[in-house]
């Protein structure tokens, strides 16, 4: 069984997989890779199922094989890593990178998923980000062959379905969302992509009502008018009105954009 040692982490890295659906009624968000297509590319290159547990890295990560391993990356490449050999994975302008290991990472399955939910110290490697000295063992999942998914398009407009809180906005708010250009803010994380660089979005009324259920992709507008697009680790309920919601196929295209990147929205044709 192969094993890899984390010898350096600059930034944040953690274990993620295809998510933990079915527990939102317990307050557990769906989770899953920030960019599902990139997780799938690394896993397919490793001959794993597309949603196997792998490393999601923001920053630079150095790994060393303790036993022979076969590793693969979100660029679709793969290579054997013999015991004692090191490997550096840097984001170099990318928002996030994925490193998969043949057999998948052998971390416990909890509530139907193996990914890390930081707010609850749940899942992944001991419920926390990876740090120097962590030893990750590979599982023994059988080899599968799947076609390589495409990487997300980082320039295309993000498709949305208007609503469901249109009545909590003046009519011009949706037009403003669809006609403006926004910028991904540096404070974005797995909870949400914060948008700046565009106009403040106007709202009607207050946020005094009870919290309502939320989903990944919801474009929440707090009193500042600066929208937040909820990510995989979003709170399962919230009180801010939702002007529009990103469609599932475009979650990755939005989430893969680095701070400073432009975002435009379009209604789903």
């Amino acid at each position, binding site marked *: 069984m192969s094993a890899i040692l984390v010898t350096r982490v600059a930034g944040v890295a953690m274990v993620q997989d295809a998510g933990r*659906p*079915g*527990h*939102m*009624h*317990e*307050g*557990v968000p*769906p989770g899953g890779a920030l960019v599902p297509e990139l997780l799938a590319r690394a896993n397919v290159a490793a001959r794993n199922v597309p949603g196997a547990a792998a490393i999601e890295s923001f920053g630079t990560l150095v790994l060393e094989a303790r036993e022979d391993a076969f590793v693969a990356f979100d660029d679709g490449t793969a290579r054997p890593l013999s015991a004692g050999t090191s490997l550096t994975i840097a984001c170099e302008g990318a928002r996030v990178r994925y490193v998969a290991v043949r057999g998948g990472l052998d971390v416990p399955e*909890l*509530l139907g998923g193996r990914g890390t*939910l930081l*707010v*609850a*110290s*749940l*899942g992944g490697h001991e*419920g926390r980000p990876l740090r120097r000295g962590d030893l990750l063992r590979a599982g023994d999942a059988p080899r599968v062959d799947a076609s390589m998914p495409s990487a997300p398009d980082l320039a295309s407009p993000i498709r*949305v*379905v208007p*609503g*469901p809180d249109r009545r909590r906005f003046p009519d011009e708010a949706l037009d403003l969302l669809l006609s403006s250009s926004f910028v991904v803010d540096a404070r974005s994380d797995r909870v949400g992509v914060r948008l700046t660089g565009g106009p403040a979005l106007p709202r009607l009324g207050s946020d005094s*009502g*009870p*919290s*309502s*259920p939320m*989903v990944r*992709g*919801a474009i929440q507008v707090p009193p500042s008018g600066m929208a937040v697009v909820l990510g995989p680790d979003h*709170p*399962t*309920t*919230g009180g801010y009105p*939702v002007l529009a*919601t*990103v*469609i*599932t*196929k475009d979650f990755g295209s939005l989430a893969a954009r680095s701070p400073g990147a432009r975002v435009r929205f379009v209604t*789903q044709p």
Partner: protein
Amino acid sequence: MSAVTLELFGDSAWRVPLATGRDPRALLDALRSIPHVVDAVVAEEHALVAFDAASPPLRDDVEAAVGRAFVPATRAPGREHTVPVRYDGLDLEEVARETRMTVHEVVALHEASEYVVATIGFMPGFAYLRGLDARLVLPRRSSPRARVPALAVGIAGPYAGIYPFASPGGWHLLGTAVGFTPFDARAGATLALGDRVRFVPVPP
């Protein structure tokens, strides 16, 4: 019976506005049992069903479930939980000032009520508890704390709650839950929709 509206919430969820009078737990159970529903959440004003965009549930099934749960509940009452609380919260004195009561009276009112889980949300295992004495209803703190410790027992608006994990938060903190685990990595959330909760004071 009023008409049921399914609001599009992106391409992989529907949100359903709820009239009052539904039994939330019966509705949650009904929604979760519908084929192709991956996730369901029932809050006070809306329910949500989430699904794979490529294989949605039947709209009729969701509408029927909402209609069925409108009937007064025949299910067994929710579980009862007793949560020991050390009343050492950072905001006890401020709450007493704002409600023009003594700290002792605030504690007495908080522990005298029986609470019902009205919504599970915000973070894993967090329960919005209804049943707070009207005299303790205050708006959220004007500036939220960057870090509320895990197991803090707080109040905000008409709700009481227990923070399962350390997080930013705007609730008024009355105390700390003792020997209570709101969320377990294997068993999930301890409190469920419709469960009843009592707070019992323990010495500091």
